[in-house]
C-alpha cells in the first residue's frame, strides 16, 4: 500500500480540535522523521494549515496508519481518528489534487491553499522522495490548470471581496478613487486593507472615538476625522463603507442627498457592512446612489459560490484524468527494480560466458578481443530491448503486472535483495499480482 493520507480537516473537526493538532513549520521535519522511523514509511509530507492537518506517506513494508493516528492522538490528547479520515492510493492522490485546487477548502476554490501545499512540500523536501515529490508537483500543476481553465476560482467569495466587486462594477478600477470608512473596528480595518490594496487614493476614517480612528488611519496612510466632520467630506467620496457598532442608522437620507447634489450626478457607492445597519434604507431611493448591505454582499458571494459549484463536474473530470495519469506513472515505476535486476542478471551471465569464451580462444589481440566483447554486448542489448520496452509499457498501463512476476519467476529474480530506496508496487499492482499468482498457481 504505497500512498496514504490521514488527517483532520474543517469538515470533521471543529476549530478547537484543529488548533490543537496544527503543527508549526519548524515541527514538520522532526515530526515526519520520527514518524517514518516508527512506521517504516519511505517518504512523508505534513500539510498543516488552519483548516487541516494531513500526513501524506509512502508506506514501507507495514501499515503506517496506526502510527499516524498515534502521532495525532498524542498531540491532541485524545483519539484523533474520531475526527479524521483516511484515503489510500488513488483516493489519496485525488484527495491531494482536490485540496490543492481548493475543492476541499472552507470556501470553495479559494487560492490560498495552493501556496500552503507548495510551502508544506518545500518544508518537507528532506522527508519526501520520488513518489511524493512527483505527487505534490503534479498536484500544484493540476490546481493551476483547474484555476485557469475553469471558473472554480472566479468571483468574490467573501464579504470584503464582494464589496470590492460591487464597487468595481460601478467605477471600474478603484485606483485613485476616494473612500470613507465609518467605524474603526475589525471589519472596518479589513475593509480599509482591501481598499488600500485596490489603490484607493484617499481613505478617510471617522469614528466616535477619535483616538481609534487616528490609530487605524495611521496604519493605512489614511486621514482620521471626527464623526461630526465627515458629512462635509461625503460629497468628495466615491465609496462610503459603514461598519460602526451604532444601534440605529447613522447615515440618513438627508446626509446623502446633500452630498449627492454636490457631486453633480457622480455615482456614490455605499457599502453597509454593519449589523444593525448604519444606513437608512431610504437612501436607496436617491438618484445615483448604490446602497448595498450585508444581505446583498452575501447574495453576491452565494451567487459566485453557486457558479463555482456548477464547475465541480468539469473539475472532477480533470482530476480523474490526472489521477489516472499519475497512477500510470507510479505503476511504471514498479517495473524499474525488476528490470534493473533482470538486466543485472543478464550482464552477469554475459560477463561469465565472455570470460569463458575468451579463455578458450587463447591470447587474442586487443582489437579482436574488443570485437568479441562488443558482439556479446550488442547481442544482449538487442535481445533485451524489445522485452524491456514492452515490460515498461505493460507496467504503465497496469496490464502487465503478471508479466513482471513471470519475469521474476523465469529468471529467478524474486529472491534478489531489495534496495531500501527501491520504488514499491502500487496497490493495484499488488492486487493484480495476487490475482495473477492465483491464476498461475505458481510459485
Amino acid at each position: 500500500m504505497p500512498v496514504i493520507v490521514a488527517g483532520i480537516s474543517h469538515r470533521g473537526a471543529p476549530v478547537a480540535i484543529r488548533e490543537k493538532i496544527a503543527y508549526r513549520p519548524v515541527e514538520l521535519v522532526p515530526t515526519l522523521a520520527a514518524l517514518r522511523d516508527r512506521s517504516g514509511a519511505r517518504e512523508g509530507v505534513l500539510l498543516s494549515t488552519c483548516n487541516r492537518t494531513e500526513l501524506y506517506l509512502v508506506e514501507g513494508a507495514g501499515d503506517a496508519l496506526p502510527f499516524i493516528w498515534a502521532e495525532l492522538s498524542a498531540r491532541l490528547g485524545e483519539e484523533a481518528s474520531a475526527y479524521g479520515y483516511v484515503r489510500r492510493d488513488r483516493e489519496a492522490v485525488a484527495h491531494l489534487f482536490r485540496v490543492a485546487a481548493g475543492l476541499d477548502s472552507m470556501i470553495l476554490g479559494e487560492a490560498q491553499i495552493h501556496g500552503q501545499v507548495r510551502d508544506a512540500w518545500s518544508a518537507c523536501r528532506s522527508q519526501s522522495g520520488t513518489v511524493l515529490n512527483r505527487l505534490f508537483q503534479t498536484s500544484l500543476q493540476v490546481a493551476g490548470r483547474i484555476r485557469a481553465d475553469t471558473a472554480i476560482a472566479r468571483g468574490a467569495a467573501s464579504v470584503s471581496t464582494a464589496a470590492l466587486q460591487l464597487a468595481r462594477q460601478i467605477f471600474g478600477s478603484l485606483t485613485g478613487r476616494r473612500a470613507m470608512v465609518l467605524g474603526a473596528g475589525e471589519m472596518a480595518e479589513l475593509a480599509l486593507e482591501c481598499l488600500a490594496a485596490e489603490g484607493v487614493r484617499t481613505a478617510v476614517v471617522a469614528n466616535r472615538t477619535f483616538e481609534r480612528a487616528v490609530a487605524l488611519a495611521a496604519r493605512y496612510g489614511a486621514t482620521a476625522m471626527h464623526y461630526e466632520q465627515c458629512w462635509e467630506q461625503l460629497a468628495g467620496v466615491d465609496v462610503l463603507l459603514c461598519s460602526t457598532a451604532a444601534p440605529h442608522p447613522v447615515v440618513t437620507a438627508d446626509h446623502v442627498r446633500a452630498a449627492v447634489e454636490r457631486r453633480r450626478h457622480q455615482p456614490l457607492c455605499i457599502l453597509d457592512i454593519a449589523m444593525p445597519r448604519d444606513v437608512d434604507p431610504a437612501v436607496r431611493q436617491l438618484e445615483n446612489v448604490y446602497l448595498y448591505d450585508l444581505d446583498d454582499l452575501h447574495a453576491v458571494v452565494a451567487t459566485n459560490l453557486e457558479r463555482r459549484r456548477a464547475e465541480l463536474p468539469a473539475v472532477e473530470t480533470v482530476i480523474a484524468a490526472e489521477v489516472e495519469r499519475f497512477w500510470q506513472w507510479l505503476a511504471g515505476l514498479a517495473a524499474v527494480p525488476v528490470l534493473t535486476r533482470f538486466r543485472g542478471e543478464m550482464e552477469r551471465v554475459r560477463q561469465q560466458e565472455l570470460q569463458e569464451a575468451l579463455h578458450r580462444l587463447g591470447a587474442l589481440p586487443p582489437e579482436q578481443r574488443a570485437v568479441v566483447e562488443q558482439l556479446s554486448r550488442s547481442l544482449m542489448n538487442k535481445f533485451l530491448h524489445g522485452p524491456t520496452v514492452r515490460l515498461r509499457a505493460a507496467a504503465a498501463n497496469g496490464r502487465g503486472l503478471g508479466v513482471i512476476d513471470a519475469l521474476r519467476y523465469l529468471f529467478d529474480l524474486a529472491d534478489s535483495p531489495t534496495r531500501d530506496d527501491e520504488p514499491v508496487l502500487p496497490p493495484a499492482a499488488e492486487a493484480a499480482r495476487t490475482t495473477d499468482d492465483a491464476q498461475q498457481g505458481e510459485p
Partner: protein
Amino acid sequence: MIAIAHFIAITCYIGAAALAAVPFARPVGAPVRGVVGLLGIGIAVHALALLTFAHREGAVPLTGLGPSLSFAGFVLAVTLWIVELIAHEVTLTLVAAPLAALPTTFANVIGLTPGHEPAGVRGLWLFAHIALSFVGIAAFATAAAAGTMYLVERRELRSRRFGPIFRFFPPLATLDRVNHVAAIAGWLGLTLGIVLAAAYSIAYREMNVLQLLWGTGAWLCVSAVALGRVLGRWQARRAALYSSVSFVAVLVLYVAFRVAGPGAGNFL
C-alpha cells in the same frame, strides 16, 4: 462573390455577438480574443466585398440603397471593433454587432446596385459627405448601444440582482465613457457630413427633402446628446436614455421615409 462575402461577414458579426453571449450561458470568462478576431474577419471579408463591388462597378459603394446600407454596416462594425480594442470589452458586441449585421443583411437581400454618382470634384464632395455622415451615424449607434447597456446594468445594480449582467457587463463608468466619447464623435461626423451636404446643395442647386429632413433630425438628436454631455453636464443615466431613445427615433424615421418616400433604389 460579393453576395457570398456579405454572407460570410454577416455570419461573423452574428457569430461574434453569439460568442460574446457565451459567458451569460456558461461559466466561462469573456472570450475577448475570439470576439475581436471573429469581428475582424467579418470586417476584412466585408471590406473585400465592398472593394470587389467598387472594382466591378467602377464606383465607390456609397450611392444606391444596397451599397450604402452595406457601407453603413461596415462602418459600424469597424467602429465597434476599434472600441473593443481600446476598451478590452466585448459585451458591446451583443448590441452593436447585430446592428451592423442588420443593414448588411438588407443590402445583401435587395442586392448591390450602384446609384447615380457624379464624377470629378463633385463626386469626391459627395463621397466625403456620405462617408462622414455614416461615420457619425455609426458612432451615434455605438453611443446608443453603450447607453442601452448602461440602463440595463444600472437597473440590475439598483435592484440588487447579481446575475450574468452584473458579472459580465463592463462597469457603469466604462459604458458611460464609451457613450460620452461616441456621442461626441457622432456629433463631429454628422456635423461635418451635413455641412458638406449643405454646401453641396447650394453649389450644385440640388436638394432632396427627405434626406434633408432625416439628416437634420439625426443631427439634432446627436447634437442634443453631445451638447448635453459637454455643456449641460448631463448625468450618465439621462445621456444613456436620451442617446438610446433618439437613435431608435432616427431609425424609425428612416424606415418611415423609406416606406413613404419615392426612390426605391436610393438610400433615401
